[in-house]
């Protein structure tokens, strides 16, 4: 435990030199680097904070904008719903009107179809009736029956249908109208005269009557007036009466 003055003084000098060296080589650069890093971190933190603040502002702005958009959307939805309701009501009214019109059309069409069916059925019934009567009368074919059918023809000529009347009037424009009359039995003058008178009233032009006899007709008459052929005989099952009756209705 000796005290040495040289050691004491040299130790003081050594330590001061050590402080100087460490300050220059160690503390100063290290503290500078630490300070620079701290400054960099602080700057980064400040930037991050600023960015966060900006992000929060943007977020707030976006939220406000979103609220506004939401309100606008709700208003638009409400307006759209109202418009859709109005449009729906108008469309429903229009649809009901269209349906009513369609229903009326269908009703009329159905009525027409029923009428047509009825007419067809009546026509068929007349044809069936005429066929039945023809078949029935074939057994009792005779000059009397033919005369009777002839008188029925004369009677029906009074009530010819409009189409037949028009057809006969068109024939009146010609100079001479040939009419071929075929019968199963010979027609007497008493029978021919009223027929010629009747047809003369219906056709304005001069008529050239040609009489023929055909036993295949069984009983009754067949008249060829231009393109119109009227069969009121048993061979054709009195179809001419059915045509006249059907057209007359």
């Amino acid at each position: 435990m000796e005290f040495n003055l040289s050691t004491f003084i040299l130790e003081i000098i050594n330590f001061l030199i050590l402080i100087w060296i460490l300050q220059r080589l160690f503390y100063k650069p290290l503290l500078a680097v630490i300070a620079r890093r701290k400054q960099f971190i602080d700057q980064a933190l400040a930037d991050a904070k600023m960015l966060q603040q900006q992000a929060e502002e943007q977020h707030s702005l976006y939220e406000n904008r979103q609220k506004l958009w939401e309100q606008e959307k709700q208003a638009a939805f409400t307006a759209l719903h109202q418009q859709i309701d109005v449009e729906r009501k108008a469309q429903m009214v229009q649809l009901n009107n269209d349906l009513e019109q369609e229903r009326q059309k269908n009703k009329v069409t159905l009525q027409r179809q029923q009428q047509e069916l009825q007419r067809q059925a009546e026509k068929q019934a007349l044809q069936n009736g005429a066929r039945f009567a023809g078949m029935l009368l074939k057994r009792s074919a005779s000059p009397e029956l033919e005369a009777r059918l002839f008188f029925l023809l004369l009677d029906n000529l009074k009530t010819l249908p409009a189409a037949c009347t028009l057809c006969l009037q068109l024939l009146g424009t010609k100079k001479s109208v040939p009419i071929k009359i075929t019968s199963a039995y010979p027609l007497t003058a008493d029978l021919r005269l009223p027929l010629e008178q009747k047809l003369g009233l219906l056709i304005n032009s001069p008529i050239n009557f040609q009489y023929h006899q055909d036993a295949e007709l069984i009983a009754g008459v067949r008249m060829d007036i231009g393109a119109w052929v009227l069969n009121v005989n048993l061979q054709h099952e009195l179809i001419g009466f059915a045509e006249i009756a059907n057209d007359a209705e």
Partner: protein
Amino acid sequence: MDHEFSFVLGPVVIGASIITTWGIMGVITVIAWFSTRHLEMLPNSLQTMVEGIVATIDDAIIAVAPEHGRQIMPFIASLWLFLIIANLVGLIPGLDSPTRDLSVTSALAVLVFFSVHWFGIKTLGLKNYLHHYLTPSPILLPFHIISEFTRTLALAIRLFGNMMSLEMAAMLILLVAGFLAPIPILMLHIIEALVQAYIFGMLALIYLAGAMQSQQLNSPE
């Protein structure tokens, strides 16, 4: 022990403690230079370690003296670094700790003594600094003066006594107990060396901080 390694250079006697101190200074200088050659913002492992040491010391000093910590940091940090290495040097066979030499610990204590006054006067000026010896009452002036010398003396003797006794105890146990028994004593040596370095540096720091900050609190400003 000093006589074995000492040599005379003119009027100056260079002892083993001075030679060891130069060696320690050389090692510290080389480490400091090597570790701070290429400092980067993204540190490597060595830079991280030395930055950790300096930052820890700096934080400890700032915690005690927040306002003047950076001013006294080189002195206190150098004391800690030097004392840690100087206290541990004794573990190397053939070398003695410089701190088991009273001349060395006295020199360090005297440096602390003068540093307290130097930083105190530098902080507040001579008049304000001297004024604190008269506070809270001029009657306490002799006690202040005695306190200045005794704490410096205690600082020197504490370090010297602890390190001297520790090395002597280790030597005696080695002589008495043989080869393996001193190992726990060597571990105790490491702990004691670190503790003594810490105590010396911390007391120096407290003295310096007290001289600078208490006078600032007592000053009229």
